[in-house]
């Protein structure tokens, strides 16, 4: 019986991994690749971790589970933070549990509050505390013993990079220890362990990958952390047994930020967004006047204020398409220093499908590398420079799959559940968007142990 271990390195770019392997920084990771295939993978629109990982959880595009970002607005323009209860789909963890197999999932974004499974779930970084994040409760003492931490304290991290660096490492070590502990003490068929630390370094420190940018210390910290991750991959490889297939993946890529782009400011300047009073803060959506036609949420999500959907929405059904196309046209001309901000501008139905399309953003913008799409309501200028130095990319997630079966398509993050079910020899539900990433050869699973590590 096969088992699958998935290591999720949040936001680890494929291109960076290749570069690091070429430079000899990640030798264990590199030698691991000889036992399988390593490819670039597409993330999902909108490109944020809770959406991308919910695709990993469900095997579906967001139109089939109804979560499009870290923050959503109700039709009354009230902000809320979606969590696992807003995901309107079964998860792979639940599907596998129902088939009489056991699952363990540590730290996957969007899995708080944990849903009951046959196995263990520890919610992701937005869990309010460890004790609230854990299913079943009986596992809590074990996690406390292995030093499992839900997350760094991002408020403090933003104030002090030194604090961030120390705490980030602690979170990583706690998770590694917990993985190895549960690996031996629990029965499992699918084990997913998620590391947020790589995404955090991406946001807070991406520029320090460039030695020129750094006082040396920050660059060293970054490289040492990457070496530590590589050691960890080496430890995992040594512990693998014949029956365990290892998958290593990220959910999106990263690139340097050139400018933060305040799309609500842009919508306001073009007359699409009007306030009935000055917004009190960046999230003061109640200040939006009924004359408005559109607003934006992070990242690159633009909503048309349709009459029959939004409270006080002023765009009539018959005008909807015209307004949408006009905004899309205007976006094409959004330039910074002569460069286009938008790489691709989609209507929602071009990239999403499913029963929850109603609540999806009407326009989704995929920016050119360097333009981090923001949505503060109280911003004075469209282009800004902030304290963060890295932003997500759609096209540059990575995927390592074991075995020598040829990969037949460019993978998308929602292909993972189908692939995992295939390895576990379980049926793939009809409503999945994802497909197994490789065609199974008759001799599958291949004996990857014949290859050198």
């Amino acid at each position, binding site marked *: 019986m096969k088992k699958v271990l998935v290591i999720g390195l949040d936001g680890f770019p494929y291109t960076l991994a290749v570069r690091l392997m070429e430079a000899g920084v990640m030798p264990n990771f590199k030698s691991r690749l000889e036992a399988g295939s390593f490819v670039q993978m597409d993330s999902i629109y909108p490109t*944020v971790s809770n959406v991308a990982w919910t695709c990993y959880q469900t095997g579906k595009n967001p139109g089939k589970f109804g979560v499009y*970002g*870290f*923050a959503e607005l*109700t039709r*009354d323009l*009230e*902000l*809320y*933070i979606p969590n696992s*209860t*807003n995901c*309107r789909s079964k998860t792979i963890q639940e599907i596998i549990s129902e088939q009489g197999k056991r699952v363990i999932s540590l730290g996957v974004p969007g899995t*708080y*509050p*944990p849903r009951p499974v046959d196995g263990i779930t520890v919610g992701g*970084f*937005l869990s*309010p505390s460890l*004790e*609230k*994040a854990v299913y079943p*409760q009986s596992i809590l003492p074990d996690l406390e013993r292995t030093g499992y931490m839900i*997350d760094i304290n*991002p*408020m403090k*991290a*933003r104030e002090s990079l030194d604090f961030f660096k120390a705490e980030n490492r602690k979170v990583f070590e706690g998770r590694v220890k917990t993985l190895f502990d549960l690996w031996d003490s629990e029965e499992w068929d699918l084990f997913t362990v998620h590391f947020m630390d790589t995404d*955090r370094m991406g*946001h807070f420190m991406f520029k320090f990958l460039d030695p020129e940018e750094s006082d040396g210390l920050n660059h060293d910290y970054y490289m040492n952390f990457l070496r530590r991750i590589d050691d960890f991959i080496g430890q995992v490889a040594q512990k693998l047994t014949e029956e365990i297939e290892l998958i290593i993946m990220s959910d999106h890529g990263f690139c340097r930020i050139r400018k933060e782009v305040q799309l609500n400011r842009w919508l306001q300047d073009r007359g699409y967004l009007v306030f009935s009073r000055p917004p009190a803060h*960046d*999230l003061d959506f109640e200040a939006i006047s009924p004359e408005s036609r559109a607003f934006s949420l*992070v990242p690159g999500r633009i909503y048309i204020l349709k009459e029959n959907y939004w409270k006080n929405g002023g765009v009539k059904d018959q005008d909807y398409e015209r307004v949408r196309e006009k905004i899309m046209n205007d976006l094409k001309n959004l330039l910074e220093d002569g460069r286009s901000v938008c790489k691709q501008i989609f209507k929602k139905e071009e990239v999403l499908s499913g029963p929850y399309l109603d609540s999806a953003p009407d326009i989704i913008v995929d920016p050119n590398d360097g333009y*981090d799409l*923001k*949505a503060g309501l109280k911003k004075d200028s469209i282009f800004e420079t*902030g304290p*963060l130095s890295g932003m997500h990319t759609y096209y540059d997630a990575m995927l390592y799959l074991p075995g020598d079966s040829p990969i037949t398509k460019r993978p998308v993050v929602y292909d993972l559940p189908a692939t995992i079910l295939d390895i576990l020899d379980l049926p793939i539900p009809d409503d999945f968007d994802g497909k197994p990433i490789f065609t199974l050869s008759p001799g599958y699973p291949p004996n990857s142990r014949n290859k050198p590590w």
Partner: protein
Amino acid sequence: MDKLSELESKSIYIIREAYYQFKDIAVLWSIGKDSTTLMWLCRKAFFGTLPFPAMHIDTSYKFPQMYRFRDKYAKKWGLKLLIARNEEALAAGMGPDQGEKLACCNALKTDALKQAIDRWHFKALLLGIRRDEHGIRAKERYFSPRDQSFKWDYENQPPELWDQYKSRAEDEEHIRVHPLLHWTELDIWTYIKRENIPITELYFAQDGKRYRSIGCAPCCAPVPSTADTIDKVIEELKTTTTSERAGRAQDKESVTTMQKLRALGYM
């Protein structure tokens, strides 16, 4: 015995046990469907007349319908009704629009309750919480000790195996008693139907919306629904996938979560 009668009988046992052990107790009545069901069970446990007071933590921001309902049934059921308000904070202008909503909850609910316990010296309080409401409530006990600062030491709780409750308090503690812990939202509704328990009209759909969970008017949002009778509510609950507290925009949790996301640049 059918399921509802079993739930009822276990709850009544716990209510009687709490009264027998502590005598100085009160039942917290938030006017919502759960605590109104709890009031009903308390009345049943003592054949119609409560031998202890009911307490309403009044933030002054509740829906007018709730105040009307409270006063009507307090009279009808002959309740000794205590109203706990943090008058000092209210006089100082505390409200949900004064900055952080969390601070408002703390002052007008938590502090008001602390003041009430100090004033009336209750040894135990009956609360209508349920295990399925919320992640953290899953590990509550039927008899749950709190220390003076209200801290809940969840790692050091009595075990409650085989329905043996540790219902005696240490000196510095008061005990929270949760007679409805084993009920689900759907159980509550089917029981309300069976017993014909009165509840406020806020729970029933008007103009395509109803409240699934009620509290302070400024911090509760209705959910889209056409369920305007108990039967339709029950039908809706059997098929819904949204959470009961989805309309409670300002949970303490979401405030912290929001701060986190802001710090990470996601908002």
